[in-house]
């Protein structure tokens, strides 16, 4: 059951300073590219921001505001990107994003979940993927003679995006094989990671799925889950511990590839790739990927948390491995966007079902920023960011998926 009272301290600590909407001084850049909250940037009203959401949560908690469809619509148009959370936590001990999650959950339990989200949840429950496509087609692209290592304690988790971008999965396979990593693929046993469920507030279905996946990993003796999908990565690390105790480690393919490269097990081609690239940090690989550590306790006078709480402030996201890999590609010049790492601007795709115009505006804003940084190429490693950022427009940027790019630049070809 949702309980907003758990976040009373956060809700009542907000002093409406607005720091959740603007770039932190440590990354200040100029007039342009200064806002970090995509919904506030687009809708302008404060209700569309971490600050406003806390006010809404407060009134719902106190019973002075009813639940409603419009509230659910606003809550789900928020991309849950967590920029507000990181910005607020720069100087405070507050849980802004978790309050937004709790409010979503509260709304869902009160019967208010937007139709498109209901559909996604239904898809996951029935077909085990967010698109509602037949489950048996999940790995239908794999060649008959595809061989993995069924005894391996490492799994390469494809994620639902494999329906749309099997090439990313195959690229990950190629990297792991080239590096000599033993791994297995779950094939028909692989179901959605559950990110969309718990993030939308469908806690019940999320729990069932997450327990199922975790149990399966345990039974299979899986110790490491590797994924090339930022969303799955963030879900395993920051979502699963909300429901279960996890006994596996999650690694992103960029971390694995970098380790292999450093150990000399991977080699990149010496051929130059003459591009100027910027790297877009996906929210779920960056600031939202820190491992969730459950905390229950009491907040005493003057903010003392008993027992002590381990804060997730966005500092330990996966920021450097993708950059180090890009820097290792001969000829590639890496430039930074003003809003990068923990201050990355969300691509907006998460809300494309809620308001396509908003999502389009946000993606365009990000491409404008990439272009302004001098890049001709935008690299990322999230299938959803790809949908937002891989577009033909005035900025003339090519989009490259990091996993595919690395696989493509391997010096020694390995049959996949």
């Amino acid at each position, binding site marked *: 059951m949702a309980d907003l009272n758990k976040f009373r301290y956060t809700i009542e600590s907000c002093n409406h300073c607005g720091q959740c909407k603007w770039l932190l001084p440590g990354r*200040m850049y100029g007039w342009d590219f200064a806002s970090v909250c995509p919904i506030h940037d687009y809708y302008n009203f404060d209700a*569309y921001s971490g600050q406003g959401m806390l006010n809404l949560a407060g009134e719902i908690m106190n019973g002075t505001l009813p639940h409603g469809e419009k509230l659910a619509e606003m809550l789900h148009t928020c991309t849950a990107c967590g920029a507000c959370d990181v910005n607020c936590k720069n100087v405070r001990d507050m849980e802004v994003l978790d309050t937004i999650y709790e409010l979503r959950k509260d709304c869902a339990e009160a019967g208010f979940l937007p139709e498109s989200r209901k559909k996604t949840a239904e898809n996951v429950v029935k077909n085990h993927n967010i698109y509602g496509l037949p489950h048996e087609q999940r790995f239908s692209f794999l060649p008959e003679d595809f061989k993995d290592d069924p005894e391996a304690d490492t799994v390469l988790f494809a994620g639902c995006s494999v329906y749309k971008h099997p090439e990313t999965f195959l690229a990950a396979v190629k990297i792991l094989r080239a590096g000599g990593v033993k791994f297995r693929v779950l094939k028909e046993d692989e179901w959605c990671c559950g990110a969309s469920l718990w993030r939308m507030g469908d806690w019940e279905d999320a729990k069932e799925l997450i327990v199922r996946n975790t149990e399966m990993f345990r039974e299979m003796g899986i110790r490491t889950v590797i994924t090339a999908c930022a969303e799955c990565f963030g879900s395993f690390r920051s979502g699963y511990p909300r429901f279960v105790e996890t006994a596996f480690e999650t690694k992103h393919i960029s971390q694995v590839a970098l380790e292999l490269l450093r150990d000399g097990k991977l080699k990149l081609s010496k051929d130059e790739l003459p591009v100027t690239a910027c790297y877009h940090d996906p929210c779920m690989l960056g600031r939202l990927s820190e491992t969730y550590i459950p905390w229950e306790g009491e907040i005493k006078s003057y903010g003392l948390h008993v027992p002590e709480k381990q804060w997730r402030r966005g500092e330990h996201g996966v920021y450097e491995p993708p950059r180090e890999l890009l820097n290792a590609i001969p000829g590639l010049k890496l430039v930074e966007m003003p809003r990068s790492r923990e201050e990355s601007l969300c691509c907006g795709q998460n809300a494309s079902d809620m308001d396509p115009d908003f999502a389009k505006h946000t993606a365009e804003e990000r491409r404008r920023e990439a272009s302004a940084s001098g890049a001709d190429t935008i690299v990322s490693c999230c299938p959803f960011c790809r949908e937002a950022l891989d577009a033909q427009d005035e900025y003339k940027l090519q989009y490259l998926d990091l996993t595919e790019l690395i696989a493509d630049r391997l010096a020694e070809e390995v049959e996949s």
Partner: protein
Amino acid sequence: MSFTEQTYRELEAVVGRRNISRDEYILAGNRAKTPEIPFAHKSAEAIVLPGSTEEVAEIMRICKRWELNYVAYVTACLPTAYASKEDTILIHLKRMNRILEINEEDRYALVEPGVRHVQLYPEVRKRGLSYAPPAVGPGGSPMVSYTCTGGDNHVQYGTSRPTRYLLGVELVTPDGEILRTGSLQADEGWFCPESPGPSLRGVVKGYSGNAGRIGIVTKCAIALDVCKGPAEIRKEGVSPHHKMFMDGGLSRVYVFNYTSMQDVCDAILALGENEVGATVQKYFYLPLALMMTDSANEFWEKWGDFKKIFPMPLVVHIAAGSVREREYEERILFDVVRETGGTRIPREIEKWWEEHMDYFMIVCRLQSVLRLGGSWFPNKAYAESTQVMCNVAESVDGFIYDYTDTGKIFDAPKNIQIIPMEYGHFASSELLFMWDRNDPDGFAHMREFTMASAESDRRHHFNEYSMYGKEWAEKITKAFS
């Protein structure tokens, strides 16, 4: 009259459908209590987002016609940014967010209300210029900081308070008239706050800022200083551990501790006489401890030690034009500190300052005082000569222990800062205190303490904090009317 469907339609015709709302959830997004006050604000009837001065003027005319109350705001940080009466609309100035000009020759920036510090500050830095960023965080509005609030700041030692930096102003009166002050009145541009004829400065900003003005400022010019630091500041790290570095050859930070307030003030005055230091502050020790720790728990772990290490810290930032100049200033600084009995605090604490220069970063981190729950209030926030401020600080001992020792307010009795301005010619003070939000009597304690503080000021004939100076305000009003 009251807010009606017709009113809404008229406002909508001005700003367009997208920029007005009376949706219950949109209104609730701007209706909350702040940690300092135990009651919720009233609900506004609608929120409008004008995009230009002309739209603001039109909205004001509508408000006048329909006898509506209005509150204009940008960040909603202060309790005054909310509706307090029925039939109030909120005018959110976010969309008016252009930096219209940065004049490097005449050294001013012309901004609209919605421009944020995190936007303006780096733009002026890029041009080798600077202004005093107040402690409101990156999302604060420079225009609001300079026109609406009392606004002392941490770099005023080598500069001055924002009031002195406000130049030409464009203001919409409650009648919907567009008024331009300063050199604008004579069509001479934005560079000067005065022009021939009666001064209109007081129209824009009385002593108490927004409490003393009517109308809405829609543009203002802010004077800029030449910046002694590098145009591009080296930045490192990921939040919450961002670091910013000044050029070590030209910039140094020293933190000393004192045991007597008079000694600190003597040091401030001596440094000022010699014009040594770019920034000099008798800082408050509680925010310093909070800024240097990562969480409330870490603060609690270290507070005991910090209290002993720097109960009365004097922070001196030297920013010089050459290494020789820096060394010269350092020599004088050390002489002054020796003569006034200061002791240098451990290096790692100074290092923290070095890693967080410049002051935009520092003042943004000052928001971490809210980490203790958010219930805080400033007292003794006024300015006088440095010596008077010293006397004010010394007077605090006379009443504060009744509150700190009994747990009515946070136990930080020495938490007063004195920030000299214009090289110590005068100074501002702030006694920042916190109370426990979890305590049902916390708010009452805050009021009680504030009254005791005001009473002490009256006893000592100090400048009473304006908000609680009703009695004096009445006397003055009576005398002058």
